[in-house]
């Protein structure tokens, strides 16, 4: 440590030492003169006794700084000077490294924030997530790792394994402080949430067990620190204030610590509400205590001396007992034998959850790892490029290095000097990369889905990121520099000095190997880019199955503004009439479930058509108004659409099927459904029932078949069943086919909504084109990034190949000249050079293809309609690579053909 400090105060230390030694000499001289010597004799004697001032100074310097550090500092100084002398070389190298490090750092930043970083709570490593593996036989609200609230309360009793267990569910509420309400991200949490996480309040108090006892009895909320600062200006008297959550009065009891942003990096809540208030926070949700409704994620904190595996094993008997108890006490007994078997075969899994729970992470961690791997390959390419450049420069500096060796420098010392060059370059590149990284991160964040809840992602460069970039730069420097450094240490001095300028072999074999590796890496990246681009274009060509142009969708949630069922249906009717009258609206209709956002309503069906059978997997369902398919532009393949008589008054869609006014129940299915369950025969007239229970009555007639349209996302093609929408449904999604520009349509629809109710919460409002874009975010990110990686890789390896080929041509100028004199044609000279390039290219391809085969499994799940080993893509990518590589090799090759034999022979 002291020694590093010394480096900074070197000047002062040197001055001190000079004064000290001067004092010594002066005193000695004075003493010697005193004892009778003449002054010149005294001076000579004093200097002799000291053994040379310079020598002493050197030795003392070695005490201050390690010899190694000191040499390294000198090396760096020398490197700076020599690098500045060849600016083109330096700029190329620094830029390649900056690209590699910038990309890697940007991807690492996202990976760190979304996938790796632990929650800012006490001992996050002991947090675990509970997950039900198997068939829950429960209604679903939300996505990913859901369970019922009573299971959380059961788990809280398992005190010998856990310090505490909590549950949470993300939702959106209509939040108001008396003025205009706005949609706000909230988290419904058990009373144990804050205490188990170990979060402290910034103001007031946090939620406790007492706030989570009786349904509807605890109208209290905790605000997030940022929300308190932004919405309440950080008011000190916030505790005790009344606020309205979906028009229900509640009291603010506290503000959470500033560092705590919830447990989901993708959805940051502004407000925390006790789970017992779920009926108020999610209008129409009355089944909080139902064991057959799954809507919360459950997490726990392991006790200090309990391992995850121990807890998981020990919980299984309790879990099995619970399954049996559920079987007796809930409606599972009426399920089909197969479903009951699946239910009883369920197990409880515990997974480490130091990062909390995040749907964003579940969806993105695979793509992010794949991209991070891509940047790693890109960085390796940049390293190879710089190594190649160094080798080229090394052969140019050959004579300098040989001279230094001849003057007595050790080979290790020269190698270290070359290493200092590359480390310095790597740090310059790393610095530039770190400057570029935040820009890249910002662009990457724009690819991610965004909703009401903000995500917690930042484009800042923090210490972690700097450390990462530092180590990557160091590694890059060593990797790029080790090849030339080793090379420098190998050659025999004797032959080097005797070599003529321009004819040294300069590690040609090594440079060939480097270019071959570069071509292999590049081919891998280009193939990956091809696969992802084909995936995206395949999905875009497939589309959602309907015409998205001139189509707008919006969703309203009247219940969040205090509307009761009857009021809500009147409001929806008012809006529908407004839309019908508007001149900019061509057609409009309503769906119960929004399309293309991943949220499904699904269930098994029992089908009666001659024989009776149940669907082998859940069918996706939606309820729509008459004219829905026409509005979307989806064809009705057979039968008819719903009409006004099919529109019904039904509340519980899931329990029983809608009954029409004339007592007939009807359903429309899609082509995929017909294909899977009717083998292409006409299903019209067949009857179905909701669920797979033996006592289900198939009394709903299939009246139509519609073409396949996308439901959860563009990728998936699934069996679908559509029911006529009831009028007492909470929340509605409108689909509007408009005339004219989207802007004017947006304006007139907003006007209609304002007239209906100015304070109506609008959940979303966008064109279907934008909706598709959003649903393809990940694919878009993968294809855009992999394409740019591929292009950069091509560029880097072209530079490498071109460099080596030019070098080879220069080296063989004499030989080519002689061949030409002896009667070889220019064409054969070109071939002579190209053959070299072809060997490298073929070698690269031979290395890359098995790697593609191995890596394919990593990306398989991200692809659509194309296999990782798709021959067309691989062939196309190989052709692109060969064409560009040969192009790069052709320029030096032509130069070889143009060699003037006389000049070539005179050349040195």
């Amino acid at each position, binding site marked *: 440590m002291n020694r590093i400090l010394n480096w900074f105060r070197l000047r002062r230390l040197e001055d001190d*030492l000079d*004064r000290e030694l001067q004092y010594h000499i*002066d005193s000695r001289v004075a003493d010697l003169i005193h004892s009778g010597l003449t002054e010149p004799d005294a001076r000579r004697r004093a200097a002799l006794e000291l053994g040379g001032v310079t*020598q*002493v100074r050197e030795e*003392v310097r070695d005490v201050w700084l390690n010899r190694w550090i000191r040499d390294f500092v000198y090396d760096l100084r020398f490197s700076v000077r020599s690098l500045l002398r060849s600016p083109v070389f330096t700029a190329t190298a620094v830029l390649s490294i900056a690209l590699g490090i910038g990309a890697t750092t940007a991807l690492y930043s996202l990976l760190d924030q979304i996938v790796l970083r632990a929650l800012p709570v006490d001992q996050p490593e002991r947090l675990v997530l509970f997950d039900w593996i198997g068939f829950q036989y429960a209604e679903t609200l939300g996505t990913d790792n859901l369970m019922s609230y009573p299971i959380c309360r059961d788990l809280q009793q398992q005190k010998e394994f856990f310090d505490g267990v909590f549950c949470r569910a993300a939702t959106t509420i209509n939040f108001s402080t008396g003025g205009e309400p706005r949609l706000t991200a909230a988290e419904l949490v058990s009373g144990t949430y804050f205490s188990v996480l170990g979060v402290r309040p910034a103001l007031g108090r946090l939620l406790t067990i007492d706030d989570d006892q009786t349904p509807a009895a605890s109208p209290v909320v905790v605000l997030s620190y940022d929300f308190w600062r932004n919405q309440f200006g950080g008011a000190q008297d916030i505790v005790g204030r009344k606020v309205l959550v979906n028009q229900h009065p509640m009291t603010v009891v506290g503000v959470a610590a500033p560092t705590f942003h919830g447990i989901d990096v993708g959805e940051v809540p502004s407000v925390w509400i006790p789970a017992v208030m779920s009926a108020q926070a999610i209008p129409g949700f009355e089944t909080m205590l139902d064991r057959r409704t799954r809507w919360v994620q459950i997490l726990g904190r392991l006790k200090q001396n309990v391992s995850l595996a121990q807890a998981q094993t020990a919980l299984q008997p309790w879990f099995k007992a619970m399954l049996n108890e559920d079987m007796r006490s809930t409606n599972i007994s009426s399920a089909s034998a197969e479903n009951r078997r699946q239910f009883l075969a369920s197990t409880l899994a515990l997974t480490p959850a130091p990062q909390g729970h995040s749907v964003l992470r579940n969806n993105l961690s695979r793509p992010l790892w794949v991209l991070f791997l891509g940047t790693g390959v890109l960085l390796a390419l940049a390293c190879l490029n710089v190594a190649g450049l160094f080798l080229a420069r090394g052969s140019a500096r050959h004579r300098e290095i040989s001279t230094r060796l001849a003057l007595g420098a050790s080979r290790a010392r020269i190698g270290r000097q070359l290493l200092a060059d590359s480390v310095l370059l790597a740090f310059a590149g790393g610095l530039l990369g770190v400057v570029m990284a935040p820009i890249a991160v910002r662009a990457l964040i724009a690819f991610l889905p965004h909703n009401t809840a903000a995500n917690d992602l930042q484009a800042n460069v923090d210490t972690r990121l700097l450390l990462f970039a530092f180590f990557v730069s160091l590694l890059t420097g060593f990797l790029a520099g080790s090849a030339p450094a080793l090379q420098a240490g190998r050659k025999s001095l004797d032959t080097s000095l005797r070599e003529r300028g321009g004819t040294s072999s300069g590690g040609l074999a090594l440079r060939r190997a480097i270019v071959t590796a570069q071509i292999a890496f590049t081919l891998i990246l280009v193939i990956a880019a091809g696969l992802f681009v084909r995936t995206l274009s395949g999905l875009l060509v497939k589309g959602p199955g309907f015409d998205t142009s001139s189509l707008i969708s919006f969703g309203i949630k009247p219940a969040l503004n205090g509307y009761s069922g009857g009021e809500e249906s009147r409001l929806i009717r008012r809006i529908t009439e407004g839309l019908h009258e508007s001149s900019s609206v061509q057609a409009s209709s309503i769906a119960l479930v929004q399309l293309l956002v991943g949220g499904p309503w699904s269930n098994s069906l029992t089908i009666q058509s001659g024989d009776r059978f149940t669907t082998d997997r859940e069918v996706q369902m939606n309820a729509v108004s008459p004219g829905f398919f026409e509005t979307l532009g989806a064809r009705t393949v057979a039968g008819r659409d719903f009409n006004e008589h099919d529109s019904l008054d039904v509340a519980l869609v899931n329990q029983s099927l809608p009954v029409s006014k004339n007592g007939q129940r009807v359903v429309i299915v899609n082509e995929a459904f017909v294909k899977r369950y009717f083998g292409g025969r006409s299903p019209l007239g067949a009857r179905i029932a909701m669920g797979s229970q033996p006592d289900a009555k198939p009394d709903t007639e299939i009246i139509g078949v519609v073409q396949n349209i996308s439901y959860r996302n563009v990728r998936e093609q699934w069996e679908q069943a559509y029911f006529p929408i009831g009028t007492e449904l909470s929340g509605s999604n409108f689909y509007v086919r408009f005339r004219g520009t989207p802007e004017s349509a947006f304006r007139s629809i907003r006007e209609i909504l304002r007239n209906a109710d100015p304070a109506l919460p609008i959940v979303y409002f966008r064109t279907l084109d934008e909706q598709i874009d959003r649903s393809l975010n990940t694919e878009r990110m993968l294809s855009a990034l992999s394409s740019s990686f591929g292009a950069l890789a091509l560029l880097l390896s072209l530079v490498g190949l071109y460099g080596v080929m030019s070098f080879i041509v220069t080296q063989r100028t004499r030989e080519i000249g002689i061949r030409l004199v002896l009667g070889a044609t220019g064409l054969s000279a070109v071939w002579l050079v190209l053959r070299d390039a072809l060997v490298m290219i073929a070698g690269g391809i031979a290395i890359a293809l098995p790697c593609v085969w191995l890596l394919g499994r990593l990306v398989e799940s991200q692809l659509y309609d194309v296999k990782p080993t798709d021959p067309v893509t691989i062939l196309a990518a190989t052709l692109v690579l060969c064409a560009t590589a040969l192009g790069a090799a052709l320029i030096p090759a032509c130069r070889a053909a143009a060699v003037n034999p006389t000049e070539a022979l005179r050349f040195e």
Partner: protein
Amino acid sequence: MPSSRFPIPQGTLDMLILQILSLQPAHGYGIAQRLEQVSKSVVQVNQGSLYPALHRLEQRGWLVADWKESETGREAKFYSLTRSGQKQLRVEKDSWDRLTGAVQLIFDERASR
């Protein structure tokens, strides 16, 4: 003349410097003179190796240095022992005693035979 003096044994210079400074603070030249006097010109100290040693001891925190006016009126760099320097001196003296004691024992054994 130099041939009649012993070169100083390896590793003992540090101990001698610590010992001299344990009596009173001194500057580099002063220490050189003191070494010369007390060892009655028997032990030869290469003055050139004195300064690296001083700086090494300072680096280890056993000495502190201070610029003060010397007996000639000029500013000189005075070294003095720190607490950990005193401790180190005790340790080195102890091990020196043990070493010389052991060597003496071996000699005595041969003499008594």
